[in-house]
């Protein structure tokens, strides 16, 4: 092989001035960690224990610097995703790419940017292209740990006295990466090659100046160049502020103290997670599972290849083991295979993402770094959607699968909180935040444009064990929800709002109900060419509810074309405004001209569809799941739900057994006695309807033997069985199936393109992938 030693690169071993290359040094840290069980062998935190105030002083300075840089830098951006939704984050790493501290923001990138640094270290960026003071590296490659291509990281090495002391990474979620479909999380493409521009830890700046070739190349590969370039400036400005901050802390506290700190703090973080787990959880195993749909045979899903035209289901079983020493293990044995869609993920994104959810519940602390990862063992079996063994996979909307699987983890954790008596911490799993309104074309200002609405950031939350979920409040990937002002979205999108209302009946029922979602009706307005598509779950529901609570309402789509609305406006006729309160009533259709083409169904994933001015699109943001038996709900709360328009009458009657009256101004009053009587009847009906579990299982077992399940369900299990003989064995044992029973994919007749022969990036010459999980 030709030597890739760059004559201009850094001399090996010169970065640390210790004679060790970065890779050698990192390996030595990993070795000490593995041998001792403590990060970098730090059995004692000598600095923290001898000078807790000094340790805290450095932490406080670093942390304040990170938070401040994020707050200042985000104001540079033009994208509402960054500026209003706060989808940016800055993180400080030690020399080997382990996170020391992070700003607020999307905590998943603690891990993803760290993986990029580790990739550069492992693949000897040190000698080629070289790592020098003033360099900038850009990464958004999903094969190097990134979640999806639209998360762009700018990584800057930090030197002090000529020695590499750390790295700073800045990430923003850009609005478009030039994928086949417009928008940052699009789904028309099925392979990496249509997933948008992917930059692989490329050196994109020298001496603090971005390189012109990169600026030219990257801008012509995306649709929304203005957002792209201002996001770039946002990341660079923030990263440089943090570099300056660290150098100043070194001046004040001394290089040695800071270096010691940058490793001890990781071990400190590891211990922090352990003590939280000890406080909150119960040792033992919790098994959970999640599913979500990929309905691709529908005529409104256009994909380039027939082998992708399959209805499939994501399967995410997880076994959470809490060890007696406070460490834990999350094993995803039995997950289904990656697929020809944009919902695949990689182990770094998958495991880093889990911290996004954990920091909302188990570890809500500002002291988040790479330490907790060292107290956690993850297992993501090769070939599953959590760890694809093929380098062609697309990842643009990895979140579709990620959030669906986290919901079940949150439920699992909540059971252990409940067991420990922390009822306030219980959450029925939160919602699967969607729909993702996306599209593009030419906007109201005549520019090539793409949109990606983040109204999703404010879905209903899961019910708690002492209170209802919050309405329209947060997303599982961001507790600091923000639906954004309509007047801001209308600047960014040629989509006039025709309503924004709380979505009745969308919170899962229960003793404590889930938070309600909301809906916004949009009319295409002042665009020249415009497309949109839907992205969410419709046929299946991943947020199930807990301890008798119901799942939140499922998704559906509504779009309308040839609406005749211009005519109706001119004639002063009624208009579709506000709520689609009960979808069965088809309220919007009552205000369209005859001949309107309406799509109202459960197909919540579509690809680019043309929309004319006057066409309608309903963006329905989901509610959260409920907790506990609905018959235990306080009657006052049911009455309030009715009066606040949170529930449809029919469901108050059917689910809660409520008996009520409504006066002439529309105020509901629940009749206590009659309701109690009706609830007693419902309880009797339940007993009458009930079947002992073993009998029910008998029937189900027969269905399994007869393979009476939809093709998608069979395909899902078949792929899990193929990847995991262990899962197959457990499945057979649980259902007491005959030894001969099997379900090979081959017998199903669904396309198996890519199912057997795969090629990973590790198979490419000169590539050493970063592996941080058991596979």
């Amino acid at each position, binding site marked *: 092989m030709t030597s890739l030693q760059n004559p201009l690169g850094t001399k090996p071993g010169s970065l640390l001035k210790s004679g060790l290359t970065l890779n050698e040094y990192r390996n030595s840290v990993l070795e000490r960690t593995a041998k001792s069980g403590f990060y970098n062998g730090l059995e004692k935190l000598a600095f923290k224990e001898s000078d807790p105030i000094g340790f805290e002083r450095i932490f406080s*300075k670093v942390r304040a610097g990170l938070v401040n840089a994020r707050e200042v830098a985000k104001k540079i951006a033009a994208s509402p995703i960054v500026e209003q939704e706060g989808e940016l984050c800055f993180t400080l790493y030690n020399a080997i790419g382990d996170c020391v501290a992070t700003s607020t923001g999307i905590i998943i990138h603690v891990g993803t940017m760290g993986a990029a640094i580790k990739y550069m270290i492992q693949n000897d960026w040190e000698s080629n292209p070289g790592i020098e003071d003033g360099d900038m590296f850009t990464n958004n490659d999903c094969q190097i740990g990134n979640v999806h291509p639209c998360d762009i990281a700018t990584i800057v090495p930090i030197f002090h006295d000529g020695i590499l002391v750390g790295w700073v990474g800045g990430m923003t979620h850009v609005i478009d990466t030039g994928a086949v479909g417009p928008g940052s999380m699009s789904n028309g493409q099925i392979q990496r090659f249509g997933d948008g521009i992917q930059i692989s830890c490329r050196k994109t700046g020298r001496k*603090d100046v971005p390189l012109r070739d990169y600026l030219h190349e990257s801008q012509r590969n995306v649709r929304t160049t203005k957002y792209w370039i201002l996001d770039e400036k946002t990341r660079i400005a923030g990263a440089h502020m943090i570099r300056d901050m660290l150098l100043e802390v070194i001046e004040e506290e001394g290089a040695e103290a800071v270096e010691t700190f940058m490793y001890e703090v990781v071990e400190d973080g590891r211990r922090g997670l352990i003590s939280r787990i000890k406080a909150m959880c119960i040792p033992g195993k919790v098994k959970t599972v999640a599913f979500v749909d990929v309905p691709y045979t529908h005529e409104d899903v256009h994909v380039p290849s027939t082998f992708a035209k399959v209805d499939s289901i994501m399967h995410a079983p997880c076994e959470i083991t809490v060890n007696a020493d406070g460490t834990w293990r999350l094993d995803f044995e039995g997950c289904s295979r990656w697929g020809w869609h944009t919902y695949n993920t990689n182990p770094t994104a998958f495991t880093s993402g889990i911290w996004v959810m954990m920091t909302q519940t188990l570890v809500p602390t500002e002291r988040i770094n790479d330490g907790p990862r060292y107290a956690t063992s993850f297992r993501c079996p090769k070939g599953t959607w959590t760890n694809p063994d093929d380098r062609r996979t697309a990842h643009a909307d990895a979140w579709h699968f990620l959030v669906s699987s986290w919901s079940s983890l949150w439920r699992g954790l909540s059971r252990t909180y409940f067991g420990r008596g922390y009822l306030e911490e219980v959450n029925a799993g939160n919602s699967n935040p969607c729909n993702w309104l996306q599209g593009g074309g030419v906007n109201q200002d005549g520019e090539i444009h793409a949109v990606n609405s983040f109204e999703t950031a*404010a879905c209903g939350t899961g019910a708690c064990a002492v209170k209802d979920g919050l309405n329209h*409040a947060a997303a599982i990937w961001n507790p600091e929800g923000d639906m954004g002002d309509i007047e801001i979205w209308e600047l960014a999108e040629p989509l006039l709002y025709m309503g*924004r209302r709380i979505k009745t009946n969308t919170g899962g029922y229960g003793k404590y109900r889930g938070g309600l979602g909301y809906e916004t009706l949009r009319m295409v307005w002042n665009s020249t060419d415009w497309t949109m598509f839907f992205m969410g779950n419709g046929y299946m529901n991943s947020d199930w509810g807990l301890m008798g609570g119901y799942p939140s309402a499922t998704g559906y789509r509504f779009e309308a074309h040839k609406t005749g609305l211009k005519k109706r*406006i001119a004639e002063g006729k009624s208009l579709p405004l506000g709520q689609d309160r009960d979808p069965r009533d088809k309220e919007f259709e009552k205000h369209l001209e005859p001949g309107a083409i309406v799509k109202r169904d459960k197909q919540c994933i579509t690809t680019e569809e043309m929309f004319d001015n006057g066409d309608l699109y309903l963006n329905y943001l989901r509610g959260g799941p409920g907790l506990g038996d609905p018959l235990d709900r306080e009657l006052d709360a049911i009455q309030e739900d009715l009066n606040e328009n949170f529930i449809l009458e029919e469901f108050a009657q059917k689910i809660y057994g409520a008996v009520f009256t409504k006066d002439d101004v529309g105020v509901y009053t629940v009749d206590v006695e009659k309701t109690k009587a009706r609830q007693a009847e419902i309880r009797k009906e339940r007993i009458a309807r009930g079947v002992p579990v073993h009998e029910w299982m008998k029937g189900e077992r027969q269905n399994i033997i007869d393979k009476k399940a939809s093709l998608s369900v069979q395909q899902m299990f078949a792929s899990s069985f193929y990847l995991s003989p262990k899962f197959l064995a457990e499945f057979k044992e649980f259902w007491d199936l005959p030894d001969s029973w099997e379900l090979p994919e081959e017998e199903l007749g669904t396309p198996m393109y890519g199912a057997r022969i795969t090629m990973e990036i590790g198979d490419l010459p000169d590539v050493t992938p970063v592996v941080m999980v058991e596979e």
Partner: protein
Amino acid sequence: MNDLTTNPVEVMGIDAGGTMTDTFFVRADGEFVVGKAQSDADEPSAVMESSKDALAHWGLTVEEVFPQMVTCVFSGTAMLNRVVGRKGLRTGLIVSKGFEDFHRMGRAIQCYLGYAFEDRLHLNTHRYDEPLVHIHDTRGVTERVDSKGGVVFPVRLDEARDAAAELIDQGCKAIVISFLSSYLNGDHERAVRDVVREVAKEKGVNVPVFASCDYYPVRKETHRTNTTILEAYAAEPSRAILSSLSDRMKSVGANYDLRVMASHGGTISWKAKELARTLVSGPIGGVIGAKYLAEQLGIDNIACSDIGGTSFDMALIVKSKFSMHQDGDMARLVLSLPLVAMDTIGAGAGSFVRIDPYSNSIKLGPDSAGYRVGTCWPAGGVTTVSVTDCHIILGYLNPDNFLGGILELDVPRAKQCVKDQIADPLGLSLEDAAAGVIELLDLSLRQHLRAMISAKGYAPSDFVCFSYGGGGPVHAYGYTKGLGFKETIIPAWAAGFSAFGCATADFEYRYDKSTDIGITDESTAEDKQAAIDTLQGAWNELTEKVLEEFRINGFGPEEVTLTPGYRMQYLGQLNDLEISSPLQSVSTAADWDKLVESFDEYYARVYADAARSPELGFGITGAILRGSVATKKPAVPSEPDAGPTPPEEAFLGTRPFYYGRKWVEAKLYKMESLLPGNRITGPAVIESDATTYVVPTGFETWLDGHRLYHLIEV
């Protein structure tokens, strides 16, 4: 000295808090007195009682003093409390049809607004407050205006008529109208406003009507609607109270116009149309006072720091101007009030101190002991260590004269608590643990102070730091240490500085209007001319509003000083910067370039040169106009130099004092007895009833002729 002819009392400030109503009066020679009275339901009576109490110090009566006063500024928390307690006027809301829920949805951010960082992460702690207007008092009217101000569908006034009738019939006492994009085109709102007024008239009821475009014509409907609702919900009741206070004062001979401190840093008449601007006033007073004091002393750039028991408030004054936040929030509501830019952190002189059980590290606040002081005051019932406990243990505060000796402290109890809760878990000595707490708190304040300065593109060496508030003099050395301020100044009246500041505020109105102006490389001279005309048009419109406000108070246009400003951005950005216009008015395309130049230069300073993006073009998103008239302000005391040695009667003895990891003997002085010119070298503690000024080893201080202490790091 109390001769009203030669030394009249002309200035009065009122700080009507939830528990106490403070008044303070300033004489022409700068001497002042403070009065106190218990706040009660009858606010005007409390003010009069407090005034009597204050003036009694000089042997004067309200009847003697009020007729000669020329300035009286009110600030109070009643309006804020009304909002927080949801005890406002029942208000009806008319919005664009299809958007009836948006007010109660609170943009999602209102469920964690005002939370400390860790709780913002911690989802299960989030909660919404009740909306100001109930959904049953909300109605939709068919209409829509688009993002460029064009009418998509015209307003249907018959629906407005029905809505108004229903809201009035069901008991709403005021009606607010807020339509989408009305900041660009208010025709629909105004048409509905007139219909609602007609309906009210037909029904023979007096229901005030508020159209958002008449009040706060700025972008972001959640903010604009909240703010307009506050006009009806909270400000109308306050107006009634202020009217009655004004009458009470007039009945004893007052002939000044009662003014109220407003969030933009000026004072406005109680008759002002937009009284909700006075919702937030307390902490702003200090900034205004600092600005005024600095002007008297000839200082341009000041970093203001105000530390009370629960929070630390910071603000910057650059070239005698403070900067503004466009969308402030208050009482967990997003608002569109221009607010004097202040950074607040929830750590104060009384914050609780705990060890985080998960990381075994010191955690300060976010809650604080407040009036219950700490474990050192058993009667307060607090069992968690507070910062005050640490100060007591280290000898910084005098346990025998705490708050003038009204509280009896138990020092051994505090020591035991600090030992058990902090020192032992960390493996530190009692003193080192307590000193560590103080060091970390001061460090955190210092970081924030510095971040605020650097975030605006400056360095501390460009500033003089003013330190005030009850805790300011205790912490000043700690949070300024090593930052390199030109100087740190502590007024002897630090504890009453906010009230002082209110009385120094200008009589000033500020109005804002959103604009959509964009100019790129491709724009022609005609485009620039049109942009200039739009901006000047907006300034003209705002000028009319400002002059109208002053007209109500009897000021003619010739008495009003007008200061135009604008908000600019690189085209397409979501944020903008407020710029004080380099030109008093604009008329030619060439003027555009001057506006751009001012912005570009300021932007590079705030965000670094590399962040500049002139290639995108420039946009003006808002026009601003401030108008002010001259007012009488308190004099700053001026006393003769008495030399560097403090008088004997000022010296109170010594006390053990822990600093720099060792115990030393600090000299104690009585603050009131020190004289101008006196110079004191640390370790020393200067005590008064209201505050304690700590000068540790390595620092010295001297008192100037204006009763300002200068703290110097030696």
